[in-house]
């Protein structure tokens, strides 16, 4: 992993404590639920026809999947589902390299992600690791620590390259235009009536 650091190592897990030493601690037990409802994790986590690792399951080793896979338990090792989608559920705690067509993270993932099509990090999720993907979507409230490499699809031979100023219109496989990068969270309270504008001008310059 690029810039692998000390905290990325798997720490010994206390019997009843949290698995990860740097898990967010800013939510207190008595806190009210968020006022704005978001997509329900449960509905997204379990799709009909996909494999599921339940929240009371722990797996250490290599996982290869030929179907969509939802992980709501603990996994340590490597996970591959090259043509499919991997979902780290809200209870999922994963220490693994993950390779898939799509990776959706709602829980905690420590490890690098290689998503051929798209990586998505939802609110309250935590990802410590490097991401290499064609598209990435990250919701406000997600905690991401790592690098992002956006893989640009190569334009078919014989076609002119898209202009550098408009990379989001790059051609996808087969010359199909790619959908734009997902912007999952609109600017909070961005109504004009609530917005203030601050202009800056150079005032003093040294060197």
């Amino acid at each position, binding site marked *: 992993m690029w810039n692998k650091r000390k905290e990325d190592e798997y720490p010994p897990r206390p019997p009843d404590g949290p698995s990860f030493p740097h898990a967010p601690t800013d939510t207190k037990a008595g806190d009210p639920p968020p006022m704005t409802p978001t997509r329900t994790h449960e509905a997204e986590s379990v799709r009909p026809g996909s494999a599921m690792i339940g929240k009371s399951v722990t797996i250490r080793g290599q996982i290869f999947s030929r179907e969509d896979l939802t992980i709501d338990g603990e996994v340590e090792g490597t996970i591959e589902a090259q043509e499919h989608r991997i979902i780290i559920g809200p209870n999922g705690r994963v220490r693994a390299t993950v390779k898939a067509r799509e990776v959706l993270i709602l829980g905690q993932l420590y490890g690098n992600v290689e998503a051929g099509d798209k990586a998505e990090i939802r609110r309250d999720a935590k990802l410590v690791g490097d991401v290499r993907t064609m598209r990435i979507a990250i919701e406000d409230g997600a905690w991401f620590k790592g690098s992002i490499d956006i893989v640009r699809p190569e334009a078919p031979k014989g076609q002119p390259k898209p202009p550098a100023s408009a990379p989001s219109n790059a051609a996808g496989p087969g010359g199909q235009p790619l959908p734009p990068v997902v912007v*999952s969270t609109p600017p909070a309270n*961005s*109504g004009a009536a609530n917005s203030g504008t601050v202009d800056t001008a*150079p005032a003093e310059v040294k*060197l």
Partner: protein
Amino acid sequence: MARSAEPATTANERTSKAFEQFVTSIRERENLSLLDLGGANQANITFITELGHRLYADDLLRSVDVEFGPAEGMQERQSDPERAQEFLSHNLDFPEDSFDGVLLWDILQFLAPPLLEGAVDRLYRILRPDGLVFLMFTGNEKTKTVPTYYYRISGPRNLTLTPRGERAPAQAFNNRSIEKIFQRWGAIKFFLARDNVRELIVRR
């Protein structure tokens, strides 16, 4: 913009000359590695990666809160040199010359001296020669708390500021003290905004 006594709760737009210069600099080159310490968000990821650069994101203030929280007594805990170094070795532990630019936003003003000095020293080491840091300090030296924000890039010279609460600055900063922090760096350029926020571009 008039300062309200109430904590801000709505997003603000900010036009920033300093940020514009930072963007101009990174636009002139390709395949740069940039470090955003203000927390990952979609807008910044999209903006930076569409320029063809690689982005490394982290939320340093959030890590500070986890390591040194709660707010009461945080300054004292940050002032422990051993603890500060340990924190930095976990959170800014990159190889030398890893980055071409750092978006530091307003983070430095909330770090107590040992942590601040250690962070600036590490930034110097992980930046390549001529690498740039964009950062800002509140202009009011007497204020007890200042609003903090998530900074989203909404254009080459525009930022959207989403409030993330109020914090007490670790110390008062004036131009002289800021220059002292960066005294071994190559160059420092100040921009004073109308709301007394000092924006800076610092070159390694």
